[in-house]
């Protein structure tokens, strides 16, 4: 129990980890075991030669908790680096979503127009449905999805955030 309840903040953390069995379980277990939040999580191998994976975690917590999360992650043996992109300078965050809409007639037309204005691509079409692919910041995707709700939204699949710092320096 921290002494002063500070307002929660949203932070995007980038981790470089050994791509070994169980490493994701270690990280997810740390969050669940210590009661931290995971808003989104993405993971994929980034270097086959050095067997490294990059994990992007978006988390929410009071500043003292965010510091704790970083220290706790950093002391895990297979974790090479922890960078808090939210404080490390400017960064780019992107997420990809696949969104299925069902409908006929005018509604269909409306959905297509909205997709166009959001620069979403149509990746599957039937006579009564579309699947759109959209890439962007999470709030752009939120907005797109909310507009599609009255137009026959069926399901949404989102990747979670991938993020990288701006400029020439690596993490």
């Amino acid at each position, binding site marked *: 129990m921290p002494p002063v309840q500070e307002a929660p903040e949203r932070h995007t953390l980038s981790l470089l980890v050994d791509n070994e069995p169980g490493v994701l379980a270690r990280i997810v277990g740390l969050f669940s075991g210590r009661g931290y939040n995971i808003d989104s999580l993405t993971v994929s191998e980034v270097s086959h030669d050095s067997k490294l994976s990059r994990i992007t975690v978006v988390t929410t917590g009071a500043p003292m908790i965010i510091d704790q999360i970083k220290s706790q992650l*950093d002391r895990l*043996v297979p974790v090479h680096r922890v960078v808090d992109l939210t404080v490390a300078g400017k960064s780019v965050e992107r997420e990809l979503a696949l969104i299925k809409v069902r409908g006929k007639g005018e509604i269909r037309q409306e959905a297509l127009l909205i997709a166009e204005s959001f620069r979403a691509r149509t990746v599957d079409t039937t006579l009564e449905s579309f699947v759109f692919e959209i890439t962007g910041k999470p709030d752009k995707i939120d907005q797109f999805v909310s507009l599609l709700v009255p137009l026959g939204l069926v399901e949404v699949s989102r990747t979670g955030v991938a993020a990288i710092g701006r400029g020439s320096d690596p993490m």
Partner: protein
Amino acid sequence: MMREMTGAEMVIQALIDQGVEHIFGYPGGAVLPIYDAMFHKNQVQHVLVRHEQGAVHMAEGYARSSGKVGVVLVTSGPGATNAVTGLTDALLDSIPLVCITGQVPTHLIGSDAFQECDTVGITRPCTKHNYLVRDVNDLARVLHEAFYVAANGRPGPVVVDIPKDVQFARGTYVGPENISHKTYQPRLNGDPEKVRAAVELLAKAKRPVFYTGGGVINSGPEASRLLREFARLTGFPVTSTLMGLGAYPAADKQWLGMLGMHGTYEANMAMHDCDVMVCVGARFDDRITGRVDAFSPGSKKIHIDIDPSSINKNIKIDLPIIGDVKHVLSDMLTQWRAMKAEPDRKAIAGWWGQIDAWRARKSLSYVKSPDVIKPQYAIERLHNAVKDKDVYVTTEVGQHQMWAAQHFHFEEPNRWMTSGGLGTMGYGLPAAIGVQVAHPGSLVIDIAGEASIQMCLQELSTALQFNLPVKIFVLNNEYMGMVRQWQDLLHGGRYSHSYSESLPDFVKLAEAYGAVGMRCHRPGDLDAAIQEMISVDRPVLFDCLVDQKENCLPMIPSGKPHNEMILPDHPEALDEAIDEEGKMLV
């Protein structure tokens, strides 16, 4: 050194190359090849336990009393799950262990095979790190790395899970030379700027206190020596957590006694009123802080810790210094001398005046009785009888543990083994056995309660088998005393299931095991009985019948700050001490 051998032979070779002399284990189907390799190469002494939990606690006692890594060998499935309590205990108290577990062969993993469990999955949250070795050619490196990870940085338990087919497979063994972890490189030296800032803060301090913990012990005897030197140089008072007892000598006049929930009044008041607090290798645990928003409100806090995640975890720190205690204290001493720093002697003298006034409350006092043995008296007499001997003490968990911490005084580090973080009943006897293995000629005493001792009592058989003459000193009040104390505090004295019903006859029980059983219930007989206990060169189970109703004081009621302690001269304050919010806490 590269040689071809089987995985099982690699395990034994790696232990030898790591300088391991003793391991604590229990055989089973999935570790038979390793036991067979041990049979052929009889260089590491194996202590056969009676339950895997006992093996881990023995390794903990061995490690904490010797500074070496403790080693455990158990089989798959129940062997591994029985070890979980000990592993968690070692994690919370930062004890370096390597626990080797057998696993079903790789092609059966995931098939719910006989004695299969997901050992790495189960032990992931209760180890510092763990490995499942699927390729025999990784095995030697992983084993050496396990020792490195267990012992370096903040120490902790490491599990190496080895499937049976990997134990049979042949591969290339590599020695421990050149094994260091590519990413795990803990920082030992503190930031020089922060060290300098800390020394400046200390030189200006008017009401300072050293708050020391288990990290001083873990850093090695040199850290204790440096702490003593620094304390002497500055004249500052020193207190310690349960885990740190012995790092600073209890006989010294600058020693305030233990702090925390059952710490002394002077230690807790000094923590509350200090202006500069130097936390050395401790972690602001809830037993120490009491109510966090009222914890030492007026102080600048310096925190020396090798684990960055300990900083700002519970309490906001003004000056964190990441590093190993002995390195940082050494740098601080050098800096102090280089700056020709002087403590504010006048202010410090005033501070000691205040501390002496708190001390005069005699917070550890109790009412002696001519008819019944008071538990505090029993510990006092025990300490008096053995204080000049080469003695190690372990405990179980509960009232007896706190009375031991309060009334048995430690002058040297590594002499006191107790389950602090996890609070594991059943720890003390196996830990004592582990200590005795590491120190065959020394006197080893497990101070126990009649409830705790029954949790791992089967290890008495291990003590007999290996001629380990541990002394079990049971403060028998026929209650799970700490549970009963909290039922007094929180639940109107309704003693729900805290009475130790159907107790065995401990004297006969000891004799059944082949140990010596003793009983004492009169204060007048106690000294002679204790003398008899320590003069016997065999395991002794000493049933000391004590006052059944005694409660452990002083006490900071849960949810209260340090300056609202209940003292033995006003025990009735306990009845109303804990409010609704405090009841939620443990």
